[in-house]
């Protein structure tokens, strides 16, 4: 008898996705949907859509969703999680959203160790607004606001978010993956699952950075897009786990006030 061996996850709604041909957002959406379904948490998950191409994520994920201001996903997630610790909370964000305007919120939610999961789609460009430089745009890369290629003297250097956050105490899981090839898609899904599990186990803050294609704003075809991820992005943004719960030591809570009383 014929069996469906790959079917659309119930973690996503039936609504058609508005992303461009070859865009990585769709794959990431599917993976998050599958993970929610497999972990059986779709009903008690609250997702946060960013301002960015994936603003529409609030229509695509089959869970309660909220759409807040640009860059403030981690702050909104904090508010939600503190009020509903029984719910699973994820914030889906692009690179502009998370690492440019939202940098402070990202770092502080991580530093606080909020029990939230961030799905961070790094496509090295601002998609929705039409291809401006992102904080992760590679050096030399053209965008509509770096028409001669990103010059570090003028526009600075791309930021490596996982590396940055890994210097903080609180994050429990940080990983960088990509979705440009089947093998990578499988690894990406594992990382996303782990990130949700870390939250479910109350272990701390988790974030998965996903290198993703934006053929439209890179001005390439979808196929060239996956090549760009492979040849240009991965060498600069190395894939891997940057922090895992295993490596995390128990927090010692010193009491400076006592010291003060005795000095």
């Amino acid at each position, binding site marked *: 008898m014929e069996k469906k061996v790959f079917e659309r996850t119930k973690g996503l709604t039936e609504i058609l996705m*508005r*992303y*461009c*041909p070859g*865009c990585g957002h769709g794959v990431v959406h599917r993976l998050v949907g599958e993970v929610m379904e497999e972990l059986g948490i779709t009903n008690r998950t609250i997702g946060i859509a960013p301002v960015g*191409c994936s*603003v529409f994520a609030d229509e695509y994920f089959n869970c309660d969703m909220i759409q807040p201001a640009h860059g403030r996903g981690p702050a909104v997630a904090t508010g939600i999680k503190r009020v509903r610790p029984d719910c699973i909370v994820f914030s889906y964000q692009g690179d502009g959203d998370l690492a440019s305007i939202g940098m402070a919120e990202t770092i502080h939610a991580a530093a606080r160790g909020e029990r939230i999961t961030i799905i961070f789609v790094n496509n090295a460009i601002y*998609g*929705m*607004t*039409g*291809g401006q430089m992102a904080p992760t745009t590679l050096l030399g890369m053209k965008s509509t606001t770096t028409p001669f290629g990103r010059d570090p003297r003028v526009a600075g250097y791309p930021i490596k978010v996982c590396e940055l956050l890994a210097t903080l105490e609180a994050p429990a899981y940080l990983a960088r993956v990509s979705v440009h090839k089947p093998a990578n898609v499988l690894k990406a899904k594992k990382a996303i699952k782990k990130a949700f599990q870390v939250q479910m186990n109350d272990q701390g803050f988790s974030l998965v950075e996903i290198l993703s294609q934006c053929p*439209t*704003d890179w001005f390439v075809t979808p196929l060239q897009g996956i090549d760009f991820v492979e040849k240009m992005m991965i060498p600069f943004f190395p894939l891997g786990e940057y922090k895992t719960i295993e490596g995390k030591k128990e927090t010692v809570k010193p009491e400076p006030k006592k010291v003060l009383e005795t000095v």
Partner: protein
Amino acid sequence: MYQGVIMSGFGGQGIISAGILLAYAGMTDGKYVTFFPAYGAEMRGGTANCSVVISSEEIASPVVAYPDTLVVMNEPSLARFEASVRKGGLLLINSSLVAGKPKRDDVKVQYIQANEIAEKMGTTKIANMVMIGAYSKLTGAISFEGLKKSLQKVFPRARQEIIDLDSEALKKGMEAV
């Protein structure tokens, strides 16, 4: 003379550049012009449309609520804009992509197999130029010379072959109606 035009189709069909060309040609012809794109979230796909006004007098509002001419490049656009066309106006339909028929009987309807014509010239990408050519012929709102002169302005980085091809497509469009 006053012509309010709406052009509408898929993103990627060159609706916007066709509209700009129209406006540029109008200006080159010495008319007052305005061009206004219905810009959306920038992602590909979906529909794109724009409004162009060409007038011998100063233009108050650039908003075209009731177009004198509607240029329809895909199916959904017909449904969306058909009703708004001014009585006695023109409905220019790319029949390569639009199967449906308009319900209006108080407007002039013209079909053009723009994609077929363009494909014969080598690429469907110039179907928009075919439509513009047809528009120019049918309404006389802009001249072929105006259009031709404007091509280089609208596509400043385009190679001459491309310009020539565009210009050829304009002509084919004029011939098709």
